[in-house]
């Protein structure tokens, strides 16, 4: 039998295959390299013909081996390939089938040929090796199989509705979700670099992912967590690359729909809080997406197409109700003995139902053209518009994927906005390679465009003078005052006695409620902190209420133009070299037009005697001569030019030395076109050494050092580099003709009660030229002329071993530390600010910015083969320092490189400690399998399991200038750790092959099947009082601590209580037809 003869021949053919280095490949394509040898002599065979065929390439790729028998075939899209080798005097050919190539990897397939006169082509199925013996990069690849079979993307948070690729990055060992995306290796999500097919899609303004492409359009998502080569730069986080599907000679397509109904949600644990007159419950109504895609040929082997459309929608229910203080029969307010909160009771007939909803459409189109063997051209276009809010609904925050409001404490027109968020991407790629594979040129031209609009719900926009955009926003927030200056208890009617607003003072009682349900009435109240018996009258107290217009409105247009040229050269000399070099140019632009509705936000003082111009774009042209800017429109930009050179030197095929250098220079320009910040000389060295102790591609030991530089998002050039001029005055609200309500007709018009100088309080001291106005912010923030870019250093080391076919087990250790940070600072308590490197240059008296991440990871990965797959990891990690990254997790402040972390000397104490992302233990297991039922039917089973130890908590207080939660009373991380949390997300599905190449799959994913309701966050606000940090303080010091006024601290009764629980159980149903 012919087959047995083959096996005999095979015995003499040693096919050696190994993955070598992610370093050599472009961001998305794979590379095949290897040596063709004579099996008996071991010497390379010159002139052997290597032919690569596969579904993902047009025609075939061929190459002849060089003098040492080496071949290299680059630019192979991820997929399955066959390799055939012919050589004179070595039989009829030698074929390797079923080679799976993943994005970005370089697979090494060595072929040993036996001299023979055989006439058959020898065919061998070669499982692609799993150990990447040429690379020291850490991370994860999620291919289509894994993305479709395992419920990784949970139905909540950013990119949830359309199952965006960045949501999948969370599966990487050591990664975790943060407010704006996925945090990798202890960094923050805006530090990541996001690519779609090598096109950079970071939001130019804030660094977030700007094109949240659905995984349905993707072949693979590759997450490089660390140890990556110089061709990747401008990021101190991870590199997340989405590789889109391509056409092929066969027609393939999918139609899908996914649906997560809110009705099947598990019971939600509600965080209890001090009784407010309005309580809003947020529940998922539904979330889902549907779409189709199709790929195929236009001209066989020459021109292929791929395209698809998806539509995703998220709907949340926001149900608000009115509540009143619950009284006992004696007329005393009830206090919950456990929480110390005032007990409230729902008023019947006051329930109001709103929706928060958003819709995203994504369309993708791609053409791949290969006119001849040397050239491949590709055009990619993506258009993804999103709409949310308006017409009686609330909007969705595009940056977090959550409804824009938590509690409906205000008028609909003031709290709700209408959003439009569009992303457009266009890319042209050209690959040219020479016939013998020595030279390879990749040219990439790309454009990423974003439109982000926040409009009033009545359709009026920034700059409009009518409608809601012409109405100021007013925050009412008068507080209680029951104590005199000497600490004595005041009775109603006594001077200084004050009560919070009653809800009915601000908005009418809903018609369905019993009349007078909220009318003030006298009742007894015992203060739970002082045990003082008091009398109160407001039964529907509201601590903050927003009325009028929607406040900040904007129209932002962002662009990122990029051009890249990468040259790869194959060379020989003391081993094999893959030398790669390139240039990389980026121009980013951010046109930000923003303004406050009605020119400003008024905020009532807590004592109710005045309204401040809380937010108002304005400047002074003479003492007390204020000029209001209706809308501030700046156009800022940045250029980054860079280049890299790297060599992957394979020494005797046993050791690989990867060495290279990257250079970048970024220049940011202000709105007046002058240079705002120059960050040249970003030299990033990267060196890695990999040793395969088995000499057979089954194992590796590696170590790598790298420096990473952060690209500065344009928000800095806009806000700090150009300026947000602002003034503040205080309008007297008491007495005849006063500014008692800025929303009263005419009050905000020129000459009205709230714009006349006569009502502005005199606030200046004897030496202040301005007596009525205070400067909130002025023009540009000065920058240290010796400013250095933000950078991190990293060492990774580890080992991997292929324990069985398709399965590797590995350990790795990462040590990553912040080298320098860029932040804004003030050494005169907010009088003047500057931007510098904390601890260096003109900021040398500030503490150095620190962030140190240490992680040890044990992982196993078996890719989908023989009907099952598993990826699992355990990470033990520490994250310490005084700077979390480009946003402040404690407050959500997203001002990259200008957060409030280093702003004030009085806030600097106690900032070092365990950062919010510090998670000691993290387990992640993703598994999927299928059981063959016969008759073309499969049962699909799988799921995700995650377990994570709790993060640190803090003791926070208010700061005199910066407000709540900005002062660390005790060193960072001194609070009790949060508990562990677990989630089990199983999936079950059924696939039926209807006819050849047509299969139907139905599936059900269950997220948090056990409906664990573990605490995810607690109230870290120890007190509402202004308290300065106690240097190196301990919990024992809290008893004697005082406020900045020297009075004892009033502890927040809610301190330490849960504020956030795990998402409840959710079901996602899916159906897919694929051909």
């Amino acid at each position: 039998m012919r087959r047995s003869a083959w096996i005999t021949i095979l015995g003499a053919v040693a096919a050696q295959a190994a993955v070598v280095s992610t370093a050599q490949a472009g961001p998305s394509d794979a590379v095949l390299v290897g040596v063709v040898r004579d099996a008996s002599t071991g010497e390379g065979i010159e002139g052997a013909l290597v032919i690569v065929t596969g579904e993902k390439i047009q025609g075939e790729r061929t190459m002849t081996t060089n003098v040492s028998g080496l071949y290299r075939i680059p630019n192979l899209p991820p997929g399955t390939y066959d390799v055939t080798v012919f050589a004179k005097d070595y039989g009829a050919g030698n074929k390797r089938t079923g080679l799976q190539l993943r994005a970005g990897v370089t697979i090494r397939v060595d072929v040993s040929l036996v001299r023979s006169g055989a006439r058959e082509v020898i065919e061998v199925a070669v499982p692609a090796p799993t150990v990447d013996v040429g690379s020291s990069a850490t991370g994860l690849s999620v291919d289509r199989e894994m993305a479709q079979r395992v419920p990784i993307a949970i139905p909540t948070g950013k990119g949830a509705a359309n199952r965006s690729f960045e949501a999948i990055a969370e599966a990487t060992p050591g990664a975790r979700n943060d407010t704006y995306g996925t945090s990798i290796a202890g960094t923050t999500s805006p530090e990541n670099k996001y690519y779609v097919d090598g096109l950079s899609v970071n939001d130019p303004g804030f660094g977030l992912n700007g094109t949240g492409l659905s995984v349905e359009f993707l072949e693979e998502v590759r997450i490089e967590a660390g140890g990556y080569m110089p061709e990747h730069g401008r990021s101190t986080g991870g590199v997340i690359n989405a590789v889109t599907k391509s056409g092929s000679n066969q027609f393939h397509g999918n139609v899908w729909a996914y649906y997560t109904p809110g009705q099947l949600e598990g019971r939600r644990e509600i965080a209890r809080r001090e009784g407010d007159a309005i309580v809003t419950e947020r529940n998922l109504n539904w979330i889902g997406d549907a779409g189709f895609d199709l790929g195929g040929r236009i001209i066989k082997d020459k021109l292929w197409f791929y395209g698809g459309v998806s539509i995703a929608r998220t709907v949340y229910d926001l149900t608000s109700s009115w509540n009143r203080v619950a009284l006992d029969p004696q007329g005393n307010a009830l206090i919950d003995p456990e929480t110390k909160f005032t007990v409230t009771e729902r008023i019947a007939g006051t329930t109001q139902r709103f929706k928060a909803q958003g819709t995203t459409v994504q369309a993708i189109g791609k053409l791949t053209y290969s006119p001849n063997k040397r050239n491949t051209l590709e055009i990619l276009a993506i258009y993804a518009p999103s709409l949310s809010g308006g017409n009686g609904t609330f909007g969705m925050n595009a940056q977090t994927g959550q409804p824009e409001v938590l509690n409906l404490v205000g008028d609909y027109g003031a709290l709700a906005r209408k959003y439009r968020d569009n992303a457009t991407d266009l890319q042209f790629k050209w690959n040219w390679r020479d016939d013998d594979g020595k030279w390879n040129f990749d040219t990439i031209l790309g454009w990423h465009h974003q439109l982000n609009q926040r409009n009033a719900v009545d359709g009026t926009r920034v700059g409009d003078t009518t409608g809601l955009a012409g109405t100021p926003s007013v925050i009412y927030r008068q507080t209680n005052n029951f104590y005199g200056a000497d600490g004595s208890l005041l009775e109603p009617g006594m001077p200084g006695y004050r009560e919070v607003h009653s809800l009915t003072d601000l908005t009418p009682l809903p018609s369905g409620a019993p009349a007078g349900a909220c009318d003030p009435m006298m009742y007894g109240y015992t203060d739970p902190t002082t045990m003082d018996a008091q009398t109160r009258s407001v039964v529907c107290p509201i601590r903050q209420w927003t009325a009028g217009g929607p406040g900040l409105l904007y129209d932002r247009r962002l662009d990122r133009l990029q051009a890249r040229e990468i040259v790869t050269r194959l060379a020989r000399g003391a081993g094999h070299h893959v030398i790669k070099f390139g240039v990389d140019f980026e121009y980013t632009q951010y046109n930000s037009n923003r303004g406050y509705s009605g020119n400003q936000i008024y905020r009532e003082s807590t004592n109710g005697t005045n309204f401040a111009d809380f937010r108002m774009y304005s400047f002074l042209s003479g003492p007390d001569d204020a000029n209001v800017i209706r809308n501030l429109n700046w156009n800022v930009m940045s250029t980054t030019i860079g280049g890299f050179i790297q060599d992957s030197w394979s020494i005797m095929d046993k050791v690989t030395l990867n060495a290279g250098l990257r250079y970048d220079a970024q220049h940011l320009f202000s709105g007046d076109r002058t240079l705002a910040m120059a960050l040249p000389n970003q030299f990033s060295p990267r060196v890695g050494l990999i040793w395969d102790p088995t000499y057979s591609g089954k194992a590796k030991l590696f170590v790598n050092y790298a420096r990473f530089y952060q690209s500065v998002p344009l928000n800095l050039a806009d806000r700090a580099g150009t300026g947000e001029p602002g003034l503040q005055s205080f309008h007297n609200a008491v007495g005849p003709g006063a500014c008692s309500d800025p929303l009263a007709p005419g009050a905000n018009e020129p000459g009205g009660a709230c714009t006349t100088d006569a009502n502005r309080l005199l606030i200046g001291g004897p030496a202040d030229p301005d007596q009525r106005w205070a400067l909130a912010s002025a023009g540009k923030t000065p920058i240290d002329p010796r400013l250095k870019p933000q950078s991190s250093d990293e060492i990774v080391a580890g080992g991997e071993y292929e324990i069985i076919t398709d399965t590797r087990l590995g350990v790795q250790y990462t040590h990553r530390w912040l080298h320098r940070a860029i932040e804004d600072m003030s050494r005169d308590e907010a009088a003047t600010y500057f931007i510098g490197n904390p601890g260096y240059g003109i900021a040398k008296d500030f503490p150095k910015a620190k962030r140190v991440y240490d992680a040890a990871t044990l992982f196993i990965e078996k890719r989908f083969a023989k009907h099952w797959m598993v990826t699992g990891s355990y990470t033990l990690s520490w994250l310490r320092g005084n700077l979390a990254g480009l946003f402040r997790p404690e407050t959500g402040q997203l001002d990259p490189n200008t957060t409030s972390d280093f702003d004030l000397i009085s806030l600097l104490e106690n900032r070092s400690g365990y950062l919010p992302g510090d998670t000691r233990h993290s387990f992640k297991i993703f598994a999927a399998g299928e059981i063959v039922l016969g008759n073309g039917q499969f049962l699909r089973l799988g799921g995700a399991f995650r377990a994570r130890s709790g993060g640190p908590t803090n003791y926070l207080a208010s700061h005199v200038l910066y407000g709540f939660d900005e002062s660390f009373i005790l060193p960072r991380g001194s609070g009790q750790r949060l508990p562990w949390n677990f989630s089990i997300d199983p999936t079950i599905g059924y696939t039926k092959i209807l006819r050849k190449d047509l299969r139907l799959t139905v599936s059900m994913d269950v997220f948090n099947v056990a409906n664990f309701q573990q605490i995810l966050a607690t109230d870290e606000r120890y007190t509402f009082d202004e308290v300065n940090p106690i240097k190196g303080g301990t919990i024992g010091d809290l008893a004697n601590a005082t406020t900045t006024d020297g009075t004892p601290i009033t502890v927040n009764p809610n301190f330490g209580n849960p504020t956030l629980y795990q998402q409840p159980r959710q079901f996602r149903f899916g159906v897919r037809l694929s051909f």
Partner: protein
Amino acid sequence: MRPAEGRHPRHADLLATGGINGTAKFDEPTAAIRPQYAGLLVAEAMEYPVDVPGFTGEKGVEHWPNAVGDFESGFPDGEDLCHVPELVSSFDRPELPAIADDPMTPDVDETVEATPPVSVSYEWTDARWLNTPDAQGTQFEADLKFTQDGCTAEFHVVAVSPAVHCVTDEDCTATGNGINPDFAVECDNSINDPMSPDVVDDPMTPEDEAVDYGLCVLAKPIPSYE
């Protein structure tokens, strides 16, 4: 950068109108100087318990002490200095009238003598501020001709910001006092700031309570660096 919530401190920063998209012309700045002594003269009249003829109800009295002048340029010169050639303020504060005793309170004598009118004039010339990222106008020098009621004195004025009260030189270099630690500063105890008066010894106690408060001043001509 300041978070969304927070209160704001004050300082002066005046710019011409007519910049890009309705903003200010950042390259046409104006300076205003308001001496504390002159400010207190006005504040005294404003807070006076009875109406002051020629002052109470008059428009713009709160701005009398302001000396305003345009900068020569929107950018610092080669020595990082921003120059204003001249700033002048001149005003006559009228007499603060006498206050008679209130007959309804026989046990308290509310009588206040009249305060005579005061005429003051400040002529600042060659005012210059040091302007670098780490000294944003926080070192200042100028010549001043001060005239009160016809009597003229000429001064050379040197200033540092922020104003820090001190007893010893160490108070001026203490971390966190707001003064750039690279500045060469010292304590001048001879300055008697009405906002922080000296404390005299209480002869009734054995301890010496006397404290000689002064203000931190530049130790060298600007730019005054360590």
